[in-house]
């Protein structure tokens, strides 16, 4: 029945001179998202709106599901197009529309007509009144409420007549790519995919880095991270996933540094390596899934100790979230089920029974000097042997 969607966007509307940049990015993202959808679509912007029109056969539900994942969209209105064949015919079309869309008609409504084409024989107020009357005559169980109607029936008179009344909420945010690019430290747990999602929602394109530690972590653990990246890529578009073989660095730290500080020192090297790749690939910041106090390496002192090794800003969108709240988002975006698959990641394998919770940065720095002999070489090798997986 519907042949088009009217896309509403929120914040782009208030941008100034560069507004067209945001709109173009949104059109681009919508086009990408619909590539994998059955059917042909034409996407164009006009008068502060984006229209998605289907040419011929298409799957409305699948299309809406895809659009619901495009950041920048605040609402999706399924639209029926009608030819202008006189007002009588329009009344029939609108009555038919209500009949199909609302099986339960014990509802209040309001007609909201607009004329983009001023040569239309009736004025907006007249259209409202006359269409309202036609609807009431067809469905006596309905009533008019001009202040808080259950159904706001929009009629737009353009070259064709657009009829729509439903708005499906979109994800909000800003079109991906308008905010630059950042490097996500992706572990395979619950938090990091959510962190990536949240930053991407603000229009940021994602790269990701995963630290693989064979034989301590399995290829299944790596495959799981690729799966997670793929789910996040459903929202953000293609993600470049950089896989770093971290085993030798980890073992070297294990050998040379106090065991309670292993996780902190390891994380400091992860940040250094992530920053290095970030700078190479043009990322403007790092993203982690840390939340204050969740584990020993995420206390304020530990965060300070891991934070000091890099100069790029580190974005931690979950910093004030409880685990429960993070889980809720991960369930909503569809990463939870994959995140909880039981494969060990490299942060947990050598973890001490009682890791430091209040690391002293000076002490950590001193212990890191134990690594001086080989660490640079090991980091260099890790960067040189990095594997790149483009996840779509």
């Amino acid at each position, binding site marked *: 029945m519907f042949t088009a969607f009217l896309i509403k966007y929120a914040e782009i509307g208030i941008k100034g001179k560069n507004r067209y940049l945001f709109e173009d990015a949104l059109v681009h993202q919508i086009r990408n998202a619909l590539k994998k959808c059955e059917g042909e679509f034409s996407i164009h912007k006009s008068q502060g709106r984006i229209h998605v029109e289907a040419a011929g056969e298409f799957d409305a539900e699948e299309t809406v599901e895809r659009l619901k994942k495009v950041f920048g969209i605040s609402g999706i209105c399924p639209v029926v197009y009608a030819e202008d064949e006189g007002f009588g015919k329009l009344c029939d079309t609108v009555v038919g529309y209500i009949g199909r869309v609302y099986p339960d008609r014990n509802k209040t409504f309001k007609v909201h007509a607009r004329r983009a084409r001023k040569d239309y024989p009736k004025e907006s107020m007249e259209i409202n009144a006359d269409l309202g009357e036609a609807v009431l005559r067809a469905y006596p169980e309905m009533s008019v409420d001009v202040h808080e109607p259950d159904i706001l029936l929009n009629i737009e008179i353009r070259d064709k007549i657009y009829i729509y009344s439903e708005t499906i909420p979109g994800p909000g945010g800003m079109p991906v790519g308008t905010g630059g690019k950042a490097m996500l430290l992706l572990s395979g747990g619950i938090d990091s995919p959510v962190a990536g999602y949240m930053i991407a929602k603000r229009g940021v394109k994602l790269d990701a880095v995963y630290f693989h530690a*064979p*034989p*301590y972590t399995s290829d299944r653990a790596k495959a799981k991270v690729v799966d997670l990246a793929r789910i996040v890529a459903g929202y953000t578009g293609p993600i470049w996933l950089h896989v770093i073989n971290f085993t030798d660095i980890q073992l070297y730290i294990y*050998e040379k540094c106090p*065991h309670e500080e292993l996780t902190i020192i390891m994380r400091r090297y992860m940040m250094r390596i992530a920053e290095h790749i970030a700078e190479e690939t043009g990322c403007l910041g790092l993203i982690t899934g840390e939340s204050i106090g969740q584990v020993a390496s995420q206390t304020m002192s530990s965060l300070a100790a891991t934070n000091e090794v890099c100069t790029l800003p580190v974005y931690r969108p979950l910093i004030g979230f409880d685990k429960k709240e993070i889980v809720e988002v991960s369930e909503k975006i569809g990463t939870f089920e994959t995140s909880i698959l*039981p494969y060990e990641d490299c942060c947990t*394998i050598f*973890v*001490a*029974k009682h890791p430091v919770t209040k690391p002293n940065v000076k002490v950590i720095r001193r212990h890191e000097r134990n690594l001086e002999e080989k660490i640079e070489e090991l980091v260099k090798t890790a960067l040189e042997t990095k594997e790149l997986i483009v996840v779509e």
Partner: protein
Amino acid sequence: MEVYLDNSATTRVFPEVAELMTKIMCGDYGNPSSLHRKGMEAEQYLRYGRETFARLLKVNEKEILFTSGGTESDNMALVGCAAANRRRGNHLITTGIEHPAVLNTMRYLESLGYMVTYLSVDSCGRISLEELQRAMTPGTVLVSVMHTNNEIGALEPVEEAGALVKRMNPNTLFHVDAVQGFGKAKIYPKRMGIDLLSASGHKIHGPKGVGLLYVGEKVKIQPIIHGGGQQMNLRSGTDNVPGIAGFAKAAELLYEHYDDDVRRLYGLKRRFLEGVRKLEGVKINGLLPGRPEGEGTAPHIVSVSVAGVRSEVLLHALEEDGIYVSAGSACAARKPQPSVTLKAIGVEKPLLDSTIRFSFSVYTTEEEIDYTLRAMYGKIPILRKYTRRS
């Protein structure tokens, strides 16, 4: 070098089997239920399958049912017999170390109101006949005991258990899950008091997705899958002709060199055990007391606990050298909880998560065994150096 030592999970298909199956799938692809010639051709393969297994097991053709694998065979034996013999009683007996296909089916029957007794095992994984005798009641409908344990290779005293069951109550049915044992030991149901026997194709170099259930002719059983009435109305569904023929072919080939192969497998096991013993801090599970060379256990399974190394890490470390083994057993390896079998035989807690299973096949060579041992000698000391300190 690729060394596949996970043959208890699944095996490489014999080339002759693959060839026969390709011929059937591409040429003789008819449905045996069809009336035309194409159907008759296909039916010949079914007959071949039935004849082959009847001959190898020394049973009648009509006592062989083909299923989708070991799991379905076990389900059918337990659920089908419990339902068909409900009037005789509602008690079943099994062991605590069965494969999940039996254990979880028993749990399902418990949820339907049946009573199930789980027999304990000794430190070698074997049940005690006295305990079995004590567990038998006049209402015991069925006793199910596995032939070969899939995790530690323990051989259960099925022949003695069968005799005991029949002596105590000729009406009690005796089921044997021989998924791991078939092809490695000669099993003759009629001589061993076995009423129902499960076997699977892919454990003996046949295809996945096919298994068999021997059902003695006097056994009352109900179908658990309903449909077009194939296989005497006991197991509906279009016959898996290529699978059945491939399974039969694999069994035929195995039985051709049966004695030599089993002798060779025991030789490999002996060689491997000898080599493993040179490592410090290892424990071999399931061997019989005073039989260090593995006599009286399955020829193809070795379970080793390596103190101080997590099994998954050792598994992936060996994988780096092309050696494929299993942590515990493949069916349990992807679940985080430790294996029921290892717990039941009293493996100490720190070793539960440090146990690796090696399982051999007719393709395994001495060279591969030595290569694996060398890899273990090299890797285990390094892995031990980097373990979680507590």
